[in-house]
């Protein structure tokens, strides 16, 4: 009996004698009506008159086992992650969370009407402030922007950039255009001005095939190939000189996986030596730029059958500072809390992943 109690208290946070910072938690808009108090009349009536039921992007279809931990499903039928009290009970308390960063996945990036998209993004952000940030001091959030129009997106960042609850600007990895393009500079300029991280999350617009050579047939293919989109965005952001233009810009990759990173670094470095004349603003090894400016969340974990391979991956990235702890709640990637992190990590590394890397990257405290 005593043993059971001890085990119960042995959260990851306790084990590493550190608080935990969760860099990817999903708060869900319960229904489009929940945003009505934050929408101007024009757009509220537009939504009603056009019979729009939801902008839920269906990245995680309800029937898929990945989509939600069984205990996160709400009895009233609202989407998992839409209830603050449940989220507090299932994420903040068991993990001894110091902070959890909310990434609200709501399909404003998919709307082709830029003005309506911007209005929906504003409504989501005001709803996040009222329903989440004002009610729970351990929560931080990402500013949702309609990236279709970077000037409008930057306006939203200027509107909210000084709000202490927002630590990040959320972009979706499958974008209409590669994120290194100058088209997106207004977003980066605003983010850098307020010290906000650019968070690039799995998912995005539906206009283009989700794999580089065409449309896949199956959800499995779509899900696994998200990491290809992340790699494309890293290549673009580095090669286009984003970090020469915005030297204080930081980018967090959310639900990206990370085991592919060493190979990408090697390939970029090797070819940069001979092809760098095309991109003369990149004046040092691309891997150095990546190590300085990018971080990656740990869940969903690309798990090797041999846990030591993950340590080797970190060694190959030549950094212990790049990984950020995440549960990706309510998406279902692990059963027991301890499974959220690779087993047998050295305690100092575990502490970095659980909180220190995020603390320094997001400038907490």
């Amino acid at each position, binding site marked *: 009996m005593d043993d059971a109690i001890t085990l119960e208290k042995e959260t990851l946070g306790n084990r590493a004698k550190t608080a935990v910072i969760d860099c990817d938690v999903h708060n869900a808009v319960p229904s489009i009506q929940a945003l009505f108090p934050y929408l101007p009349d024009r757009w509220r009536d537009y939504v009603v008159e056009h019979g729009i039921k939801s902008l839920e992007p269906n990245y995680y279809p309800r029937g898929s086992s990945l989509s939600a931990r069984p205990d996160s499903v709400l009895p009233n039928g609202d989407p998992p992650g839409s209830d603050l009290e449940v989220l507090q009970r299932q994420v903040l308390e068991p993990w001894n969370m110091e902070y959890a960063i909310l990434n609200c996945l709501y399909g404003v990036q998919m709307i082709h009407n830029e003005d309506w998209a911007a209005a929906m993004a504003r409504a989501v952000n005001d709803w996040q402030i009222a329903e989440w940030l004002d009610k729970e001091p351990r929560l931080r959030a990402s500013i949702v922007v309609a990236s279709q129009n970077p000037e409008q997106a930057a306006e939203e960042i200027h509107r909210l950039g000084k709000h202490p609850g927002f630590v990040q600007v959320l972009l979706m990895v499958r974008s209409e255009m590669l994120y290194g393009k100058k088209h997106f500079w207004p977003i980066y300029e605003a983010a850098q001005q307020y010290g906000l991280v650019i968070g690039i999350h799995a998912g995005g617009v539906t206009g283009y095939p989700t794999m580089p050579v065409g449309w896949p047939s199956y959800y499995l293919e779509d899900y696994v190939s998200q990491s290809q989109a992340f790699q494309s965005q890293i290549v673009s952001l580095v090669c286009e000189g984003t970090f020469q233009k915005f030297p204080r810009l930081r980018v967090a990759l959310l639900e990206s996986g990370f085991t592919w990173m060493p190979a990408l670094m090697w390939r970029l470095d090797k070819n940069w030596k*001979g092809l*760098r004349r095309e991109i003369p603003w990149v004046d040092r090894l691309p891997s150095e730029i990546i190590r300085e400016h990018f971080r990656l969340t740990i869940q969903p974990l690309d798990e090797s059958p041999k846990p030591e391979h993950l340590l080797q991956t970190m060694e190959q990235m030549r950094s212990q500072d790049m990984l950020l702890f995440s549960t990706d709640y309510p998406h279902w990637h692990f059963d027991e809390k301890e499974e959220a992190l690779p087993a047998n990590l050295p305690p100092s590394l575990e502490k970095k992943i659980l909180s220190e890397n995020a603390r320094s990257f997001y400038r907490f405290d």
Partner: protein
Amino acid sequence: MKKYFVATVDEIPPGHRKIISIAGRSIGIFNINGEFFAIRNRCPHGGAPLCEGELSGFVHSPVPGEYTYTRKGEIIRCPWHQWEFDVKTGQSWFDPVKTRVRSYDAKVEQGCAIAESTGTKLEEGPHVAETFHVSLDKDYVVLEM
């Protein structure tokens, strides 16, 4: 240190090069705006004939979209992997300390000066005949190595 007589000055006009073989080594002699430079014709990366590569300028940039293009004709790119080397120093652009090609002193000496020099021993260069038939009114490229 030996001196090798490798070419007459008018053999290598500005912007041109001559590849010679000397003491078992292939070496490129370059005329950059009237000054002569010599580097080994062997890329330190994979052994390619570096001196056969494209001669171009140095392109760099303070910020995306702005290009600064300088030192035209002073940067050679390896024909295999396009690594860039400074012909004047042998240093690579991306790793000047560790990745470099051997460079040699190339000087211009007048034929009459060579003929008069007694303390300097001239070794046979690639142009054996010329080595021993110095024209007093011509200038010569001399390598010291």
